[in-house]
């Protein structure tokens, strides 16, 4: 502590203070030492188990995915034969894989973009000065709460060709019935529609919270300046919502690249999934089939490695956008 008083005054105080310094220092050093020890004990007690779990449940299996992908290895066999990149070469020539990869990208884009657009539009509607917006928010959230398997079963029943609700509703406006889940042209859109329905509420809540954080004044100012609804949305809402939009984009893309449950359940027929579902054969389903139906451990790992890299590349690109613009 330095005193700003001119020398001469409070001399006695200063001397006393100076005399106390070594005491304080040693006290502080003692305190620092015990604290350091206490933190060491606690830190080790926390980090050792957490890192052990991370190593065994995350890092090792991730590394093994890439290692296995270089082997010709049957599931259950003690070891495999090293074949370099041959699995990847075989994958590129494999129609089932190419279909699955393409279908996954189509599903991901086809689900992510409409889900985000619709939930943003609904959030914008809720953000107008309407009464009771939270009631709507909760009702929209209900499909998020319902778990995916029961929901897939219900939609399967709605899409049912003979007695399904959808065909009935469409018949009211003169559209003839379709076999939604059996028609190779329609099965992907049908599953996409169901997935959009399931996801909207989640992103709606995130966007609504984001919109609520934007001060009203901004909109009022835009309004006074004579901005149209569109330009207020474009130049006020969108830039201020960017962090949430990008979080939603990354999260939804990862979720949708890993689509599996609804495809498995909705194309599950007479005990075997995906047999008539070739038009919606997605990457995770193909990995599952290769590993557990054909027992091709190495091949399935190579496919998983491609999924791994796809997820990584897509999320890194999206995060770059986040960092650049934010």
């Amino acid at each position, binding site marked *: 502590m330095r005193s700003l008083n001119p020398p001469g005054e409070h001399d006695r105080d200063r001397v006393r203070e100076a005399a106390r310094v070594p005491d304080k220092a040693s006290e502080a050093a003692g*305190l620092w030492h015990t*604290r350091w020890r*206490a*933190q060491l004990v606690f*830190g080790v007690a*926390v980090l050792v188990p*957490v890192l052990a*779990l*991370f190593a065994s*449940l*995350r*890092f*090792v*299996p991730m590394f*093994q995915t890439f*290692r*296995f992908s270089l082997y010709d290895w049957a599931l259950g066999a003690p070891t495999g034969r090293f074949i370099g990149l041959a699995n990847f070469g075989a994958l590129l020539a494999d129609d089932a894989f190419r279909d699955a990869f393409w279908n996954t990208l189509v599903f991901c884009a086809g689900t992510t973009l409409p889900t985000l657009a619709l939930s943003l539009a609904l959030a914008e*509607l809720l953000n107008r000065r*309407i*009464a009771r917006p*939270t009631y*709507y*928010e909760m009702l*929209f*959230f*209900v499909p998020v*709460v*319902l*778990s*995916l*398997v*029961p*929901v897939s*079963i*219900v939609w399967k*029943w*709605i899409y*049912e060709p003979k*007695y399904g609700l959808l065909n009935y509703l469409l018949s009211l406006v003169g559209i003839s019935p379709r076999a939604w889940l059996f028609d190779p042209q329609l099965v992907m859109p049908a599953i996409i529609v169901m997935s959009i329905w399931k996801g909207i*509420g989640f992103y709606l*809540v*995130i966007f609504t*919270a*984001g919109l609520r954080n934007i001060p009203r004044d901004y909109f009022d100012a835009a309004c006074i300046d004579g901005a149209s609804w569109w330009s207020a949305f474009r130049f006020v809402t969108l830039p201020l919502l960017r962090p949430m939009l990008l979080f*939603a984009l*990354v999260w939804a893309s*990862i979720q949708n690249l*890993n689509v599996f*449950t609804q495809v*498995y359940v909705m194309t*599950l027929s*007479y005990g075997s999934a995906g047999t008539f579902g070739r038009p919606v054969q997605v990457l*995770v389903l193909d990995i599952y089939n290769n590993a*557990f139906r054909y027992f091709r*451990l190495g091949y*399935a790992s190579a496919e*998983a490695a491609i999924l*791994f890299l796809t*997820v990584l590349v897509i999320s*890194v690109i999206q995060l770059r956008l986040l960092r650049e613009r934010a």
Partner: protein
Amino acid sequence: MKPAFRLADVSAQVATHLLLVLSVAVMILPLVWMVLTSFKPPVEVNIWPPRLLPQQWTLENYTLAFQRAPLVRFLVNSAIISVVGTVAILLTSAAAGYVFAKYDFPGKEVIFIAILATIMIPLEAYIVPFFTQVARWRLMDTLVGLVLPNLIASSGIFFMRQHILSIPDALLDAARIDGASEFYIFGRIILPLSSSALSALGIFMFMFIWTAFLWPLMITNSTQVMTMELGLTFFQSMFTIEYGPMMAASTIAVLPMLIVFVILRRRVIESIAMTGLRG
């Protein structure tokens, strides 16, 4: 200040509400359809044109569903793995989050970044070696094996660290000077001050674990350890086209989460909003 009454405002309000009510109806219809179908006798399930309300309400589908599949067992299993997984994630995330937020040690950055790097990688991408590893540990077809992927979450550690960073150091130092141990500080200062973040993370993780499907599908064989999600699929392959009992079983499957949501509705919404704002 708005003028008290303007016709244009009122009609805009009415139009907005109309649009919203219509969208809500579409969102809720599948749930309503499921519940109502579950109370219909078989003759009313497969009829054309379909009717929304059952003409004769029956519990037949429910008794059938409970007879043919151990639904209670499935529910208990789902509850066990979701609760255990959520508690484990909360504990590991809060403790590791505290260490990463408030401690200084060599290599901290590197370790934290290594953990953070896995945030984007979903289980599906490394599930095959994960499976062989769990098989090697002889945890196939066990509840322990089921809960294993959900003991830690890098997103949880990141989320808790962000929150704990906002707790002032002075508070912790004051406790230390008063002789509080680190365990005491963690249990009595960090955890209570993080209650909102913890409940947000908890709700999110509980929902996430409850709906897990691929992993249970891979490692369970016996109905004894099946979760509700998996049990329902198993059940579906037994019934194929009998939608009545299937809707009953599905209704039972969604009921626990629906009840939790109805009770904690505000908290659930706030939690999801918080993960979005913080994430």
